[in-house]
């Protein structure tokens, strides 16, 4: 299990009883989640579990029907510009305007996060280098592969050295080298004291990098997994199956039991 950095402990982003439905579908049904400094918190679950909706709620992209989300101890609607300046995110579509170059995209993101032009240019250069995008720095984003586009989105999310990062499936479309680069970037961020919330389908990957793994299913948090434990995948399916049993829904057999 990765070691939690010494700055961990204080909650910087937390959800309390948040609920959100879309017509008759309850996407998030009263979730409590706390994100601490220096901690990489992984959110895992099957497709449609409510992970993306929960992340949107925690970033103000969607409003909860009930419950509240706090950033730095302040309810989201009352957050100030300074609070948001220290947040980075990548939810589904990366910050990648096809007509802009890789560098221009990262600089634009950094400037929108409050950095002045010289600082934004410097931060963009570092972030592009960290994410291994230097060979494409002056190329338009429209020519990037899916994996590089994803890395560009990560570079934009991390360039301004945020205190809180929320990433939805950040390793989607990445090759093994890209996965390692992202893993190292998240570790470095956590070492700086950044609180990281990351969703993923890759259980082995999150168990390598996360300090905490929370399982979400049917819009609720159904338990947590020990990142250091063995057979994380089997325990994940046991947990999901146990949560699903009352509803008699179709759950795949855990691997190795067929």
């Amino acid at each position, binding site marked *: 299990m990765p070691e939690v950095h010494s700055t961990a402990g204080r909650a910087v982003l937390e959800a309390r009883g948040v609920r959100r439905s879309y017509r008759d579908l309850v996407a998030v049904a009263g979730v409590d989640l706390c994100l601490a400094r220096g901690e990489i918190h992984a959110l895992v679950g099957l497709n449609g579990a409510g992970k993306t909706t929960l992340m949107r709620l925690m970033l103000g*992209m*969607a409003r909860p029907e009930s419950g509240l989300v706090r950033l730095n101890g302040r309810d989201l609607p009352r957050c100030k510009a300074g609070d*948001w300046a220290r947040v980075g*995110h990548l939810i589904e579509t990366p910050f990648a305007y096809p007509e*802009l170059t890789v560098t*221009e995209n990262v600089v*634009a993101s950094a400037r*929108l996060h*409050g950095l002045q032009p010289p600082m934004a240019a410097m931060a963009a250069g570092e972030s592009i280098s960290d994410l291994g995008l230097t060979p494409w720095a002056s190329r338009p984003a429209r020519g990037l592969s899916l994996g590089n586009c994803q890395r560009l989105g990560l570079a*934009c999310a991390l360039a301004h050295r945020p205190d809180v990062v929320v990433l939805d499936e950040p390793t989607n479309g990445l090759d093994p080298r890209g996965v390692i680069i992202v893993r190292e970037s998240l570790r470095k961020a956590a070492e700086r004291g950044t609180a990281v919330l990351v969703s993923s389908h890759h259980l082995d990957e999150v168990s390598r990098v996360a300090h905490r793994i929370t399982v979400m299913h049917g819009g609720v948090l159904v338990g947590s997994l020990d990142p250091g434990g063995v057979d994380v995948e089997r325990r994940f399916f046991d947990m999901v199956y146990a949560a699903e049993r009352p509803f008699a829904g179709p759950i795949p057999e855990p691997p190795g039991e067929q």
Partner: protein
Amino acid sequence: MRAAVAIEWLKLRRSRVVRTATAVLVFVLPGSAAAFMAAYLSGGDSQLAAKVSTVLNGRTWADYLGLIGQFSSVGALLAVGVVVCWTFGREFSDGTIGSLFALPISRARIAWAKGLVVLYWGLATSILGVLVAVLLGLALALDAAGGAEIAQAAMMPVGVATLTTLLALPLALVASAGRGYLPGVGALLAIVVVTQIVTALGAGAWFPWAAPGLWSGLGGAELAAQVTPLQLAMPYLVGALGMSLAAWWWKHCEVV
């Protein structure tokens, strides 16, 4: 706000849609008017000359630049309208709207930044288009006129382009609420059709989208003379109201 304006300006400059619209406003509209005037000046009894004489009644600078005003009342509305729809709707069509959440700058300000750069671009291209038209006019050997007279005649197409740019701004709300540029483009076409119908029914320049065309002489000199300053002021109200509603919508929208 300054950062948002700078970034929106960069996106606008790099856009192929905007480059095409710029070419239409700066070269196609003045070029078309110059071609019409050239056909008119060539005279004769050709079918082309006969058709052109229905929209041109003289060879003065006022006639020539007034024709550009008439073309702009529809052409500039379409060109600027497409740019407005793209500028706002692309964030939803491309899925980048999510990136504009959780920022120290509010989405309402980002929307205003978009509106401001489109307005600036619309005014700059219309002035540039008139300058191109003046150069083409000099080559056409129109009736002799002084610089002051030409400048006065140029106020008409610049004014029409300004009004049509303002009238295109409410499309920002349609493209945003419709979550893509296509609903905005649909609304743009609807505006053009409704303007024709409303004008035919006699509402005249009280319908704001009809005012620039009627003022430029699209309905004839008699109707142009009847357009009042109040009617010409209404597009300013329409533009301000449209942008305010678009900014309000951006402030309250969610990612779905």
